[in-house]
């Protein structure tokens, strides 16, 4: 294990977390000659991704977390979940969202005490959660930054679209985004005349074409339905010494050829500057304040084996400190930092808002069969979306959403090709594609050419739509410290309280109605099922006088728990992402978003990280 003597070097900046924010800041500082130390709770960047791929291939449940460490299952390849109390750096996983698991601390890392399960997960590993991002690199629309001014909802960001626009450009080039700006100037998004994305766009899929053909020129509920290519952090040409996308349809959990950007790319470039040191398997455990209210050091605990004992303790000092441990572990670290009782509410928490306003893009999933083959299971997981419903006066009344067009058949929807194959071979009908023929007692069990043709017809017409709904910020949705559940280092695990507001649920209802309308326009047959009564990731809602149960998925977009704002009383950090309370402390990542907005958050996270790097450099002089 790389365990440099942390205090042998004078560090300019200590960063907690080696994900996208930490990597981008470290690279910029390293290039400028600043000495940087990154504390990473999880494992190092591997030499190659062979172990990740092997775990993915051999996993029965190919959930987003499965390629990465610590292993979701013990033993690997089984379905037995690793007890999070045995792990030094555990993390949530999507296997613990069922009726019997979501509140079981023996399998669920997060201590969930809310009305609904928080359904998104994150990684604790060098490269961070973006190891399994989709690659969607959308910009927020201008009104995402001014929801209060525009619609008297939520709060405005202390930044405007124009403030962040130059940083979006830099982030797009750091990530390597494939798109054409002529398709992205909707709903007020603007680009400088001389700007262009670094790579040509990713071609749309046949699924995209089928949706486009059906909806072009049409509206629903007064809002035009416009299909737009999705800016993608995947290569349409060689970039950063990485290959061109080969359409492995596996961006989540892992691109096997690294044609999709992940932060290990930037992290390696940061390390290559010679000015950045990475300490892995090093869990930050307390932020220590001096008598002037400045951060004076960060304490950490180290381990060799995630299931083994702690192997050391230490502390690091620097001129500036950056917390980049994502929107659950960052507030957890701040809340744990009580400084022997001097900061009973934790650090950076004079507002009392630390951990509050936890948000996601709760996702409504709808699936159908097209009238003709659209040949899913091919190409990147998504190549186009409907972005035209992300803004409008309706945001006064209900949540906005974007629509992601899926290229993976019913893989996300029902677990295909497994489910339908099991159906046709065994005479079952869990997919709904093998109904009992008239005057027979059971669905057919097929073999030979009939089996091939039934499966081919079933698979080739499958597609789905995912609606990413803008969740309202609520102080009643929060991360805090569990008082009953701890990890193997003895640190408290995060406790989560979570629910969906009526505003958010109204957006869900609009999403369902829009899905129904699009499928009708396409002449597609819808197969979306209502969730079981026992499924905790669902809620009941009245739709046109009828009570219906809608399931929501986590989008993996964890946002809002240390929001930025224009006053110390209404926010945790200022527009520079600097703690109002401790001037040498910065909190970066999507936890500082005041609202979850309507774009997938990664590009905005990266843009804000690059902006923070500039502030840090200005600070350091």
């Amino acid at each position, binding site marked *: 294990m790389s365990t440099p003597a942390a205090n042998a070097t004078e560090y300019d900046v200590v960063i907690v977390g080696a994900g996208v924010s930490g990597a981008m800041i470290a690279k910029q500082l390293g290039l400028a000659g600043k000495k940087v130390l990154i504390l990473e709770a999880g494992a190092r960047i591997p030499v190659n991704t062979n172990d990740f791929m092997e775990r993915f291939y051999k996993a*029965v449940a190919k959930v987003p977390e499965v390629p990465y460490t610590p292993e979701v299952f013990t033993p690997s390849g089984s*379905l037995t979940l690793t007890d999070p109390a045995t792990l030094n750096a555990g993390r949530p996983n999507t296997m613990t969202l069922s009726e019997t698991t979501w509140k079981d601390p023996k399998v669920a890392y997060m201590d969930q005490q809310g009305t609904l399960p928080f359904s998104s997960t994150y990684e604790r590993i060098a490269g961070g959660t973006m190891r399994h991002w989709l690659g969607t690199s959308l910009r927020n629309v201008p009104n995402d930054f001014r929801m209060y001014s525009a619609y008297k909802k939520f709060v405005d960001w202390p930044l405007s679209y124009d403030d962040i626009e130059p940083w979006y450009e830099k982030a797009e080039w750091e990530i390597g985004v494939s798109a054409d700006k002529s398709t992205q100037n909707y709903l007020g998004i603007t680009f400088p005349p001389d700007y262009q994305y670094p790579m040509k766009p990713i071609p*749309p899929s046949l699924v995209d074409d089928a949706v486009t053909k059906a909806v072009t020129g049409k509206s629903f509920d007064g809002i035009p339905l416009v299909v737009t290519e999705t800016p993608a952090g995947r290569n349409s040409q060689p970039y950063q010494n990485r290959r061109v996308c*080969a359409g492995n349809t*596996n961006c989540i959990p892992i691109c096997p050829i690294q044609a999709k950007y992940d932060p290990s790319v930037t992290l390696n470039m940061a390390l290559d500057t010679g000015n950045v040191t990475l300490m892995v398997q090093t869990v930050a455990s307390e932020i220590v304040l001096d008598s002037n209210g400045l951060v004076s050091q960060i304490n950490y605990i180290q381990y060799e084996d995630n299931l083994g004992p702690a192997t050391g303790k230490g502390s690091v000092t620097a001129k500036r400190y950056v917390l980049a441990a994502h929107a659950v572990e960052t507030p957890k670290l701040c809340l744990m930092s009580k400084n022997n009782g001097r900061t009973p509410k934790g650090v950076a928490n004079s507002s009392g808002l630390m951990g509050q306003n936890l948000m996601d893009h709760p996702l409504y999933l709808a699936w159908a069969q097209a009238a003709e083959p659209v040949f899913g299971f091919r190409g990147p997981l998504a190549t186009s979306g409907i972005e035209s419903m992300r803004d409008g006066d309706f945001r006064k009344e209900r949540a906005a959403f974007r629509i992601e067009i899926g290229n993976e058949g019913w893989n996300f929807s029902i677990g295909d090709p497994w489910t339908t194959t099991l159906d046709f071979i*065994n005479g079952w009908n869990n997919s709904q594609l093998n109904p009992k023929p008239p005057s027979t007692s059971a669905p057919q069990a097929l*073999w030979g050419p009939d089996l091939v043709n039934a499966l081919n017809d079933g698979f*080739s017409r499958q597609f789905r739509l995912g609606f990413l709904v803008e969740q309202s910020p609520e102080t009643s949705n929060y991360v805090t410290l569990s008082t009953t559940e701890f990890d193997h280092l003895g640190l408290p695990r995060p406790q989560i309280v979570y629910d969906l507001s009526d505003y958010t649920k109204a957006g869900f209802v609009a999403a369902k109605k829009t899905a129904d309308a699009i499928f009708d326009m396409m002449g597609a047959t819808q197969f979306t099922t209502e969730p079981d009564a026992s499924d905790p990731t669902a809620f009941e809602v009245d739709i046109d006088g009828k009570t219906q149960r809608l399931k929501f998925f986590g989008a993996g977009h964890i946002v809002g728990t240390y929001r930025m704002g224009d006053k110390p009383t209404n926010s945790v950090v200022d527009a520079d992402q600097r703690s109002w309370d401790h001037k040498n402390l910065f909190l970066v990542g999507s936890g500082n978003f005041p609202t979850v907005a309507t774009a997938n958050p990664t590009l905005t996270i990266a843009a804000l990280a690059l902006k923070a790097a500039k502030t840090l450099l200005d600070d350091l002089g």
Partner: protein
Amino acid sequence: MSTPTAPATPMQNFVNLSALLTGIAASKLAPGVDPKNIKQTYFDYARGQDPATFDKLLEIFASNASQPPATIADIIFNQSGSGICLFARSVMLMWYLGSWYPPSELAKSGTGKPPPDSTVISSEAYTQGWAWNVAQAHPMGYSNFNFGYWANNPPSLTDFVGGANP
């Protein structure tokens, strides 16, 4: 199919039986040049699960190999007991999904919740699953296609699975 002059080997019987049940051409399941040799992996794995039933299934196939396919299928699925029927389905699923679904799991009610227990036989078995080819696609995470292929129609189903399928 085996020639009348030379008795089929157990492997030939396994491949021909598998082709009949799966609908995938034997020349695709076991190509002449076969560096992956997944047929041997599957033969060994399935036999290792239950040698007696495996051998019995091959024996039923071999002794009826001259019958029409529908007759052979009827004998396997309907006339030889549930043990043979379910084991044959496990073999089909192995070829399609690269995973072993024990016959005992398939015997349970097919409500699908939770799905039947299974084991991914190997990483290579996952990437050789025929369900993906029947979808005219590729295993998720294992594409041999080139950039942009998804914007065009795939090769024909026959190109993927062989034989006389449309």
